[in-house]
């Protein structure tokens, strides 16, 4: 039996750290990288007698998220205590939400795979709730003791829980990427995975297609998309092997070891935590008015799904181009600014340049699009000169490289200055092109003969010679026409 005899069922829990200035229940800073315990207030370290006061900014970000995924933003939600003992949780409980979370339901559309095999799928969300992060335990050697840093304690998190709708590691990664792009798009989380701002837990089980759900194991704390994929792939194979060898899967929490590529048991169901949730008496219910929701709705940027549809409907882009261009807020913003400057009629060449030469050059230089040395206005200026036949696509690549290197100055006319300075203007004067063509024909009688004998390749060689003789500046379409005309007659 093989993998195809089994259906994989995956649900994800993602912790997105909300990008507030202060903590969810205290006025301590959330800035990353401070000296240990410099940003741990009396509330965060749980001194007796302190009381939590909820951060409006954290709630507002939860509302933004709820609206962005078409969920219900609960008019009334409740904070609960999740009880467990661990040294980096000084209160002995984490304030979270249990029965009544702030965001309920919702869905997100993902695109899985590439090329012709790519498909779209809707993943439903169960809920998203607000909670506080714990501190950090450092287990390096402190004379056989553990060191506790509570700077992270009380940092606001949105835990986003999906339905078990994913059927492969590729779908799980596509979903995680889509959520990652969305939380950055609506500016509620910086998405920095190295700093732990976006962490994934994956619930994985396998079953016979159509059969009852299998027992799941939860892989904790995956902090890169690659690890998410590797961990799920390993776990799926392990579960299938175990079942096919006649074994049973026991519910458990496992950790992924990136070095060995394996998952290993952290705790079984027997010693699983019994969190004894109950409503936190320190906090009254969170009430969110319709007016507040309406205001947040009004402040939301155009969402990736809507922008993608607009790119297809109004700009005439393909679904693939529109998806690629809305993969991140920065990419979409760059493209939009380029089209705004170049004109909507040039949307397709703008898209080609952004996804092609620009993306390739950025990739080579290991730069993000936000740090591109070529601005949207400069790129638009370049695209316009291709469109109006001032330069050919080939020459445009030269101009692009010059723009990249900072030539031509700022603004939309940077390309024009480079074209002028380097004399790159396309030759469209048919008299001038004819003269070059005549020279080339005279110098290459062999090619002419071959062409007349029916070798189409010889024609291309002649075009190449003309382009070379014009130093790339002759209009290729005109060169074609004139050559055909002269050879045909």
């Amino acid at each position, binding site marked *: 039996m093989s993998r195809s005899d089994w259906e994989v069922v995956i649900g994800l829990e993602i912790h997105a750290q909300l990008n507030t200035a202060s903590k969810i229940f205290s006025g301590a800073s959330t800035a990353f990288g401070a000296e240990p315990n410099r940003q741990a207030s009396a509330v965060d370290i749980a001194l007796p007698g302190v009381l939590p006061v909820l*951060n*409006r900014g954290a709630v507002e970000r939860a509302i933004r998220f709820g609206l962005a995924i078409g969920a219900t933003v609960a008019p009334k939600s409740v904070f609960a205590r999740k009880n467990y003992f661990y040294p980096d949780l000084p209160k002995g409980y984490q304030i979270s939400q249990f029965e009544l979370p702030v965001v309920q339901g919702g869905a997100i559309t993902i695109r899985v795979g590439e090329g012709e095999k790519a498909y779209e799928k809707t993943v439903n969300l169960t809920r998203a709730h607000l909670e506080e992060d714990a501190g950090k335990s450092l287990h390096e050697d402190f004379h056989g*003791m*553990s*060191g506790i840093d509570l700077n992270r304690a009380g940092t606001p998190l949105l835990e986003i829980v999906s339905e078990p709708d994913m059927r492969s590691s590729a779908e799980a990664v596509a979903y995680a990427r889509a959520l990652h792009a969305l939380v950055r798009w609506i500016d509620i989380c910086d998405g920095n995975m190295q700093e732990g701002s976006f962490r994934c837990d994956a619930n994985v089980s396998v079953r016979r297609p159509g059969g009852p759900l299998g027992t799941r194991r939860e892989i904790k704390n995956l902090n890169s998309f690659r690890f998410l994929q590797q961990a799920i792939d390993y776990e799926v194979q392990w579960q299938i092997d175990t079942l096919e060898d006649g074994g049973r899967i026991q519910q458990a929490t496992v950790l992924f070891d990136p070095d060995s590529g394996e998952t290993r048991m952290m705790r079984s169901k027997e010693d699983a935590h019994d969190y004894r949730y109950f409503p936190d008496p320190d906090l009254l*219910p969170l*009430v969110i008015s319709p007016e507040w929701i309406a205001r947040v709705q009004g402040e939301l940027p155009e969402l990736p799904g809507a922008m993608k549809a607009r790119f297809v409907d109004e700009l005439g882009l393909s679904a693939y181009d529109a998806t690629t261009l809305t993969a991140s807020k920065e990419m979409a913003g760059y493209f939009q600014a380029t089209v705004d400057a170049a004109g909507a009629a040039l949307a397709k060449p703008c898209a080609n340049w952004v996804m092609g030469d620009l993306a390739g050059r950025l990739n080579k230089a290991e730069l993000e699009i936000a740090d591109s040395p070529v601005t949207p206005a400069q790129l638009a200026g370049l695209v316009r000169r291709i469109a109006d036949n001032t330069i050919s696509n080939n020459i445009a690549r030269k101009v692009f490289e010059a723009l990249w290197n900072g030539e031509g100055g700022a603004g939309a006319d940077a390309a024009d200055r480079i074209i002028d300075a380097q004399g790159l203007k396309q030759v469209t004067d048919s008299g001038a092109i004819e003269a070059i063509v005549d020279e080339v024909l005279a110098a290459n009688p062999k090619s002419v003969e071959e062409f007349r004998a029916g070798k189409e390749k010889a024609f291309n060689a002649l075009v190449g010679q003309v382009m070379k003789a014009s130093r790339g500046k002759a209009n290729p379409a005109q060169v074609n026409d004139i050559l055909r005309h002269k050879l045909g007659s």
Partner: protein
Amino acid sequence: MSLSLEQVRRVAQLARIELTDADAAATQAKLNGIFDLIEQMQAVDTTGIEPMSHPQDLATRLRTDAVSEADRRDAFQRIAPQTENGLYLVPKVIE
């Protein structure tokens, strides 16, 4: 409803409270007394009444998202049993 002795021990274990056999029996009796009270309340007809999560029917107050706490690490750590490099030291726990 009442709690078995085993359930009492489990709750004590979860709460990290050490109970002697005698303590466990006494605690069981006390807790079951509370369950008797709950049972009495359960008898009240609450059909159509929305459950409350807090005895006061109010909404939680919200603070503006601004940093208002100064660094008071030195004062806090003065009363800690053991610290090093700004960290609180605790008996080693690895999960």
